[in-house]
């Protein structure tokens, strides 16, 4: 090395200064070892940092790093052994305190040792991939003290005992526990998890298993839930108080499993306090708690939903099949609405508007509303009722609200076409008798139906509205024309029109849009007949190529009648008018005569006569013999002595609001008939695009296509397919009988 003296500079063999002294390493280490002892003995304030650092530095520089490092490990290990013995020797309660005290002191010492060995830490440890001094201190503490079997077992027992005591309501020293768990965590997450947390979780599971049994036998469901909620909150608090945050999900999982998941089935099924009871008693708060708790465990909500669905179906079924309720359609629908509202509110307030629960509610309603075949009719009747009178005193928003709710129910209907049938009938009645309360409400309902079911569904309904509107306009024209001709003709014809010229209002309805069959026209009185002819001429002049036929059974008339001294104005149906006008000529007529003279169909005639003769206070005709029923041999006469306090009287035809059984059958039949072409159209549409398809797929697709309107019966579909094959729209595949082909 001396030979390399060249021009620039010589590098002193700086680091080999001490190697000459063979005892150097031993001597230096002795100094440091003593110092470490002093530090461990907490007697370090007299030591010189400068001196110790210099010695450690020199040892590293002179390649005695191994000696230094190994010496350090030995010294500290020996020291910790004695500490461990001291900790072991502590009795009872002070064990934890002693452990914590020793741990704090150890940390302090290690900090000082680290300070003087800083150079070794930076150079020797790094070059030789050793464990840094700080970590070394932790590792040795872990291995020598904490994992010392006698200490570990005792530590664990005491920790778990403390936690158990706190669970049972005792006050414990949380800050002490906190520092102990913190120590375990400082030693590494694995120490905390393996040596403490694992046992902690097992103990917790045992504890809560027992507790769950106790609670189950002593409390009812809401109370149990309250307790479980409290326990969960306690565990969260415990973690934040003196455990590591990583434990939180694990311990919560234990509590959830033991207190909720394992018990939830028995909980919801509890007599008098389970889910059903809570639902029936509107215990929103308890239900909210149940939801929140069950949500924590995997199948909790599923269980809740399933149970609720069953319950809803059950109560709903009771509701719709109860014959008592079915008598009152409005009441029936109102009841459904109340039920729906109740569960909506429940889901919103207690179940956090959970979508899955909303779906469950929908499927339940869909299930039981369609259990009753008359639901479509009732819903339509409910709307009819609301639109006739129910909406009078309500604001626009309220009206919208009611309509929206009914639309909810409508959505559940499978047989929407049946509903359409009834709705059309009821709408027609409302429009013709001018009974609808709010045009706006009618319109808005129509719009709702349109958005729900499409244009097709409401086109006829809309055309009904249009008919009414155009009729009003053409009536205006008709009246103007009459007045005009009066002025124009009075001069040359010189025949003034009679004073008692009757005023005619005609509503021209498009055939097909309105739900009515062609009924034979009755014989109108002459006065009427003339005016009708007038209108017919007027109308056909402006609308050539159309045919007018009179629907006399739908009309009504105002008559002025004189009964002896009292005069009255009677509001009657067209049929009744025809009957009454007969008595202008004669005072008494037999049933047969009336039938012959008016030509009114027998059933209608009977009803008309019934309301004219048999209703008390409105009996403008007398009947022989006096009875409630109209017989074929009865005789009717003008009731001279009729008296009433009212000047205006309305004599309404007795008419059933609800359909009678045969009528219902009739409607059903018509619905079935209407469905046939729709099903056929759907089949053809599908086959046109698919060319070949097997039977089951056709059925599935047809059902899907038509589900917005009704649920077609598979056997009906099969019949339609057969009919289409007959008419050579389709053919069966030659090889596979289940396969159909489309014939262009």
């Amino acid at each position: 090395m001396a030979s390399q003296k060249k021009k620039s500079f010589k590098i002193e063999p700086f680091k080999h200064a001490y190697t000459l002294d063979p005892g150097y390493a031993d001597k230096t280490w002795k100094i440091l070892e003593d110092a470490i002892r002093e530090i461990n003995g907490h007697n370090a304030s007299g030591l010189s940092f400068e001196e110790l650092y210099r010695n450690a530095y020199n040892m590293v520089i002179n390649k005695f790093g191994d000696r230094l490092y190994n010496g350090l490990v030995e010294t500290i290990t020996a020291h910790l052994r004695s500490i461990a013995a001291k900790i072991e020797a502590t009795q009872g309660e002070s064990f934890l305190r002693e452990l914590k005290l020793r741990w704090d002191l150890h940390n302090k010492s290690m900090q000082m040792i680290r300070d003087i060995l800083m150079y070794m830490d930076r150079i020797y440890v790094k070059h030789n991939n050793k464990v840094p001094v700080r970590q070394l201190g932790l590792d040795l503490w872990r291995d020598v003290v904490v994992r010392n079997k006698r200490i570990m077992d005792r530590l664990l027992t005491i920790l778990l005992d403390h936690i158990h005591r706190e669970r049972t309501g005792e006050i414990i020293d949380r800050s002490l526990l906190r520092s102990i768990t913190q120590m375990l965590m400082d030693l590494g997450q694995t120490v905390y998890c393996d040596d403490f947390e694992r046992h902690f979780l097992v103990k917790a599971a045992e504890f809560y298993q027992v507790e769950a049994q106790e609670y189950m036998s002593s409390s009812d469901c809401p109370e149990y839930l309250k307790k479980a909620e409290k326990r969960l909150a306690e565990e969260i608090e415990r973690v934040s108080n003196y455990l590591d945050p990583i434990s939180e999900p694990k311990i919560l999982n234990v509590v959830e499993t033991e207190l909720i998941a394992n018990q939830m089935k028995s909980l919801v099924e509890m007599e008098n306090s389970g889910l059903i009871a809570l639902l029936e008693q509107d215990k929103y708060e308890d239900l909210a708690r149940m939801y929140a708790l069950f949500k924590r465990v995997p199948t909790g909500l599923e269980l809740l939903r399933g149970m609720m669905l069953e319950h809803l179906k059950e109560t709903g079924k009771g509701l719709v099949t109860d014959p008592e309720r079915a008598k009152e359609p409005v009441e029936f629908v109102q009841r459904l609405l109340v039920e729906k509202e109740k569960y909506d509110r429940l889901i919103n307030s207690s179940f956090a508007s959970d979508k899955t629960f909303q779906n469950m509610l929908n499927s339940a309603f869909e299930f039981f509303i369609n259990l009753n075949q008359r639901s479509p009719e009732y819903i339509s009747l409910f709307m009819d009722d609301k639109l006739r009178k129910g909406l009078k005193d309500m604001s626009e928003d309220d009206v919208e609200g009611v309509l929206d709710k009914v639309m909810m129910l409508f959505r559940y209907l499978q047989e929407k076409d049946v509903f359409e049938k009834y709705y059309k009938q009821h709408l027609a009645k409302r429009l013709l008798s001018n009974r609808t309360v709010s045009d706006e409400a009618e319109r808005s309902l129509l719009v709702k139906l349109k958005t729900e079911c499409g244009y097709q569904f409401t086109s006829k309904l809309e055309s009904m509205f249009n008919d009414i509107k155009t009729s009003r306009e053409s009536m205006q024209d008709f009246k103007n024309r009459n007045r005009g001709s009066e002025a124009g003709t009075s001069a040359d014809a010189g025949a003034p029109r009679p004073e008692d010229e009757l005023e005619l209002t005609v509503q021209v309805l498009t055939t097909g849009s309105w739900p009515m069959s062609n009924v034979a026209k009755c014989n109108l009185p002459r006065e009427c007949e003339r005016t009708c002819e007038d209108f017919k001429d007027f109308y056909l002049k402006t609308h050539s190529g159309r045919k007018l036929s009179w629907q006399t059974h739908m009309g009504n008339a105002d008559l002025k009648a004189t009964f002896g001294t009292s005069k009255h104005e009677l509001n009657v149906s067209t049929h009744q008018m025809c009957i009454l006008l007969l008595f202008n000529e004669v005072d008494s007529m037999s049933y047969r005569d009336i039938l012959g003279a008016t030509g009114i169909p027998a059933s209608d005639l009977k009803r008309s006569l019934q309301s004219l003769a048999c209703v008390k206070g409105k009996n403008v005709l007398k009947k022989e013999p006096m009875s409630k029923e109209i017989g074929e041999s009865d005789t009717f006469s003008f009731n001279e002595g009729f008296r009433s306090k009212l000047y205006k009287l309305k004599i309404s035809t007795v008419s059933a609001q609800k359909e009678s059984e045969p009528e219902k059958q009739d409607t059903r039949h018509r619905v079935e008939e209407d469905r046939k072409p729709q099903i056929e159209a759907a089949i053809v549409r599908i086959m046109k695009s698919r060319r070949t398809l097997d039977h089951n797929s056709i059925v599935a697709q047809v059902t899907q296509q038509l589900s917005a309107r009704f649920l077609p019966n598979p056997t009906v579909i099969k019949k339609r397919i057969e009919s289409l094959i007959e008419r050579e729209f389709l053919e069966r595949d030659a090889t596979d009988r289940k396969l159909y082909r489309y014939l262009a």
Partner: protein
Amino acid sequence: MDLFLAVKTGDLETVRYLVEVQAVSLQQHDAWNAPPLYYASLCGHEHLVRFLLSRGAKCEEKTYDGERCLYAALNDKIWRILIDEGFKRQAARGHDQYLEFLERCFDNPASFPDIEFTVQDTRVQAHRFLLAARSPYFGKLIARRWRNHRSVALFPDRVEPECLYALLRWFYTMRLEVPADELQSCIRLCKALKLHDLEEQLTEKAFSAAAIGDEYGSVVVEPMREDAKAQLQDAMEVAVAACCQRQADSEGTSSSGDYDLVLELGSRRYRCHRAFLCARSDYFGTMLNSSFREGVVDSEGSIQHVSMDDMDPQVLVSALRWVYTDRLDADLPGELLLQVMRFADRMIMEGLKNKCAVLLHPHIEQSTALPLLAEALQMDCDRLADSCIRCLAVHLLELVQEPLFTELVRDSIATVQNRQEFDSVPLIDDVRFHIGQLHGDGELSEDEDDDMGMPALADMPSATDGCVPEGAAAPSNGQLSMSERQQKLAALDQVLADIGIEA
């Protein structure tokens, strides 16, 4: 005249007039909250962009204005200018440990302050020696009126708290920022403290602020970073000179009494300041905050004595100078430089160690490569080690016989724990890498390896005595470097074979 209009139209003369004569601020924003540079960039006035940047317009990375200017750049050329002049300049001056360290010292209770100023409720902590070094006027006050006061209360009717704070901060950072409405009282304060330069600059600012009617916001005086650093360093030179003064000389002078740490080296005393030594050296930081004798503060303001007996005074002075000023004499002889580096390593002053390593680079040559390499490896100084290995690779044939080389190879082998057959030796790998770099990177084919390798080895003895033989260069250049490369690789293999390892 409107600066923004001139910038938009590209009127350099007007802009120059406004900026240089009227001292219009370039940091102002128009109604759309955009700075002038933004419009110059947007409208594509390259000359204006350069001009504005040269006059201190800011275009800094990750600032709203900076990114906005860059985004607005009309063409790539302007974009490039903004990146080069704006972002990079900022990056260059962005991070300076010395300046950051000084800034941290200010008003920081952890940095051993020894004087506290109070105005009303505002308390500011500072260091006597630093104030004295920065301002002769303060020096006088500290030496006389405030000599024995740790806390100095100032009268609020004479000093605004904010001004005092800003001004004291300026002593540490060269950056003064005061609210515009405090500007006048700050100027008065500068006058009172006889800070004439600063007073002048502030007056100018006040003038221009009044000219543009900018009465809100804050006024900033900030020289370019290099200038600021140089000024602070110059001031600290005074302080470090005071530290190293002999006891006898310093007795009468003003500021040298304000030390709190004495380094003893034989009969010499270096009167230093914990504030600086602790922050610049982990050794002192740890020592003075530890629970050992040195770290125990028995009474308020006691002066700690630390023995530095095994040091060279020259080394200590150089290191102290670095601690205070961040400067190291570039002309130090190599031996001293190395000693300073060893000292820095021992005292854990990373900055000084790196600086030494940089300065040592020119000293690497055939004779010093190996010992320096040993030092660099010992001190964990990778860049120096790499340069040494490179030099070693050049002179390998001469140095391979040195016992120190074998020793270093042995050390390197020892660093690989649980050595396996297939493990290589890091040092040998590095040398081989550099040989590859020196003599062309191309991998040899097996044939060449055999053909060229064996004869080269035979030649070796004659090549070891100093330089590459002249004659060897004759055949062809490529041939030569091939054979030299072969020789070196073979020599390395020989060393390993001697040690008894295959790698």
